């Protein structure tokens, strides 16, 4: 048993940034957990069933995510998906694993990414300066992986002018700067 009366405190990657640029907002979503699920060879049927049972989610096709309430599944590779859900403690992996019952290989990705929710009337204009994907034609729930200002990123459309942007946590400050800059350049 640790002898110290010291407990570790979790800190949001960007300190929980929550800012406005004009009528637009950039908010760090540190309430969301990310767990990747890899499909075992020949295991898609079992995993599909587990997703349905555990979360009421369908296996997502490429370029779209399947939402159920605040939980969302995004296809990230031919045999891999990312589960996004509200979860505050560092045991997201165990939570998912228990529901899957061995039908998928899980890896906690919560800390590997920073998640920004961006919204507001200039959001599509800002993303034009940042995101090579055709996000203005994404349906709600549309998702894609891309590169923004040289940083690997994921983009998910939540609504007409509301998106989740994900990028590596180590370069989160640079990513935030890129997002802020894009908004500043298109906002009066």
């Amino acid at each position: 048993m640790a002898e110290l009366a010291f407990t570790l405190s979790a800190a949001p990657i960007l300190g929980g940034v929550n800012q406005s640029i004009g009528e637009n907002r950039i908010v760090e979503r540190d309430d969301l957990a990310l767990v990747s699920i890899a499909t075992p060879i020949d295991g898609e049927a079992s995993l599909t069933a587990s997703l349905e049972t555990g979360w009421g989610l369908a296996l997502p096709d490429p370029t779209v995510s399947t939402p159920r309430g605040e939980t969302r599944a995004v296809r990230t590779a031919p045999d891999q998906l990312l589960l996004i859900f509200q979860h505050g403690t560092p045991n997201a992996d165990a939570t998912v694993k228990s529901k899957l019952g061995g039908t998928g290989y899980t890896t906690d990705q919560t800390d590997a990414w920073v998640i920004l929710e961006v919204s507001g009337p200039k959001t599509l204009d800002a993303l034009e300066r940042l995101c090579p994907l055709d996000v203005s034609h994404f349906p709600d729930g549309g998702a894609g992986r891309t590169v923004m200002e040289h940083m690997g990123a994921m983009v998910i459309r939540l609504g007409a002018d509301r998106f989740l942007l994900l990028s590596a946590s180590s370069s989160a400050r640079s990513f935030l700067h890129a997002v802020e800059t894009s908004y500043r350049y298109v906002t009066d």
Partner: protein
Amino acid sequence: MTQVNRIEGGQIDRSNTLKFQWNERWLSGHPGDTLASALLANGVKLVGRSFKYHRPRGIFSAGSEEPNALVQLRKGAAQEPNTRATTVELFDGLYATSQNHRGSLEWDLMAANDLLAPFLSAGFYYKTFMWPKAFWEKLYEPFIRSSAGLGRLSGRPDPDIYDHGYLHCDLLIIGAGPAGLAAALAAGRAGARVILADEDFCMGGRLNSESYDVDGQSGANWAALAVTELHAMENVRCMTRTTVYGSYDHGIYGALERKADHLATSEGKPRQVLWRIYSQRALLTAGATERSIAFGNNDRPGVMLAGAVRTFVNRFGVAPGREVAILTNNEDGLRTAADLKAKGVQIRGVIDTRKGETIVDTTGRKALKSVTLNNGRKISADCLAVSGGWSPNVHLTCHHRGRPTWREDIAAFVPGGDLPPGMTVAGAAAGHLTLAATLADGHESGARISAELGHANAPGDTPSAEDEPFETTAFWHVKESKRRAWVDLQNDVTTKDVKQSHQEGFRSVEHLKRYTTLGMATDQGKTANILGLSIMAEASGKTIPETGTTIFRPPYNPVAIGAFAGRARGKDFRYFRLTPSHKWAEENGADFVETGMWLRAQWFKKPGEKGWRDSVDREAAQTRKSVGICDVTTLGKIDIQGRDAAAFLNRIYSNPFLKLPVGKVRYGLMLREDGIAYDDGTTARLSETHFVMTTTTANAVTVFRNMEFVRQCLWPDLDVHLISTTDGWAQFAVAGPNSRPLLQKVVDDLDLSNDAFPFMACTECTVFGGTPARLFRISFSGELAYEIAVPTRFGDSMIRGLMAAGEEFEVVPYGTEALGVMRIEKGHAAGNELNGQTSAQNLGLGGMVSKKKDAIGSKLSERDEMNRDDDLRLVGFRPKDRAALLTAGAHFLRRGDPEDMAHDQGWMTSVAYSPELGHSVGLGFLKRGSERIGETIRAYSPVRNQDILVEVCSPHHIDPEGERQRG
């Protein structure tokens, strides 16, 4: 000065007056003017000096093809040279100056060059400046350099901001003239997602310049209504001030949008945006460029293209001259005369080459005074409108190396059959040089492409217009003219230069271009190329299509380097990755070093320490004495899971991994396919189906990418899955004899004794009362050491917790330099040794290439040449004189051998001062090194002027038996 040449009409807003400065003189113009039209309105004819001969030059065209009227715009740091006055939109307070003269524009001292013209012909610089040899560096080169170029850069950082962006469309229409507008209307009405881009600030193209009707109204009105309709369509994006400058792969086009060039200030917003446009299809409706005719002294201010004269008269309400003469080889001459007459401008004569008339000479130093005809008649004129026919703007059709084809009936090149995939060409760009034809072609193309893309709404009617008379002849230059006749105005290339180039053996058009510099100026010869080709063809007795063209490459028009750079300037040149303990490190005196994208602490300075060595020596010594902590998050971490994960790793690593027990870590070596070592690291087995691999920081991405390739392409039958977790875990090395008691205070309910948690053990655990963690007993320093990882969100808290827990042991944080010192002391290979050229055998790790299994690279590592007994081996070195410092990069020589490559024995790869041993230590590759322990050899470094004796020793300078790390 008032606007003496302003006449009625035009698309300018006369209710507003704009003040601007030209060569420090205040002049005025109106919204809708370009700098060129405003200068002409104010009677300014002389606007610059030519490149080589410093001849007075005036405005020649009315568009982006302008070769003469290059000016410097703005002042101070924002000064921009070589800006075409014909494309600069006038704004209040605009400041412009002329360029390329010494002294004033009117009295340019360099104009003496014109007298030296016989010595400055094509390729003169290959023939002169030969002697005396000593003059080259001291006199000729400095003089040539100071004379070269046109404008001047400010030499200061560009204060403007530039940005990049990405756009998507079904159909990109390049050029918003009659064909482009008709196409956009058809495609937009059909429902296609259209981007319509035009470099002008006003869409309409030649419709704004000519006096023809479309749909029963003036062409300019029709264009304005079309733009209004297009703006109202949600599926159409109209982009003015946007030049599509290049066609790239996969339907991608580069476009430069000048966002704020027409404003006095950009107010913190990007001045220009470089767009990458992803299109399904593209329609090139870039129109055509008028070309000149070469005759004696055809470069005087006042000699202009006839189409430009019509533009200034019709669009800008400016008369370029009071007495205008017209030289033409086609119907445009009469059209020009009619337009000028309608505006009350006096016409001094129409000289039509089809009737055998032509011009042989002109007079007027700073402005045209008269023209002399081939029949000897002299006509006074202050403006000469020249039309040598039109060349379709085929440039973008050639960006994928397509070649245009010649059409004799219009005496011009038109797009060839080999267009960039997805591109169609319509209108004048396709060779339809009359209005009704170009409108019909644009409309039909827009409707057809939309239908092909599945947009079925009605495209509307074809705009109606009448085809104007069109007849042109191939008349390129006036042979009987004795005076110099310019072909390329911007680079001062004359007909004589082109002929001389041919005489001197430069027969290929590509050689002609480079020898004479024809078409190599900022205008890329838009008005000159065909003229040059025709003269070349004549000289060689070939036809123009036989002569061929040079290849067009992006950009179509000059693009500022700043626009290509976009945001990537200064500290935003690239992104940074920060370790989870970065903030804490900043607070504790860390000095950071860039390792790839990461910023890593290289040492932590304490008060009183004078230099980096003080800090590094202290950190290394204290770690070996008690305990030190280093953030090693940057090492690549890859989560490997699946039923076949062990089998997969067994094929990736050269050494065995199949039977690695759960709860154990193993050091692994990866080879490339060719058998060369490329990365090393440790892999821990957390469960039967779950491994965690670490890679070097530098190769984290490469290793992941290679493994993903192997997984997907070589062995897709294996059940194995990879995902990077590098950023997910904050990982710290805790090294030194007191690392165990320190960590024992930190981990929850885990016995860290050597028996319970021996060297190379690993486990998932919790720390500080419940935070999930992973603990590995591995050592890079050679000490008793661990690496402990917690989720990144706890990283900052963790370093603070570890330092607090280590206080009683006088724990130190250590940076990458102390890390390097300790690994060299221990003899561990790193990037300097894994340099992409060394084999496992070179590294002394030959035993790690298992002969009992196949793994990537193992077969080719068995090649004889890679297994020579006399090959290089990694060994250690120490200076014979212990006070001497070793240098990396020094080459080894036997004592007495000469210093040449034939006697080279190897080289020193890594050196460090060892605080533990009190002297410098090194690692290096030495021929038969492992057999030469104890030998004394030379370490010779001529670049550092060092030649010292060193002793060959074990690479394990400390603890060769590994007792500390196993203890």
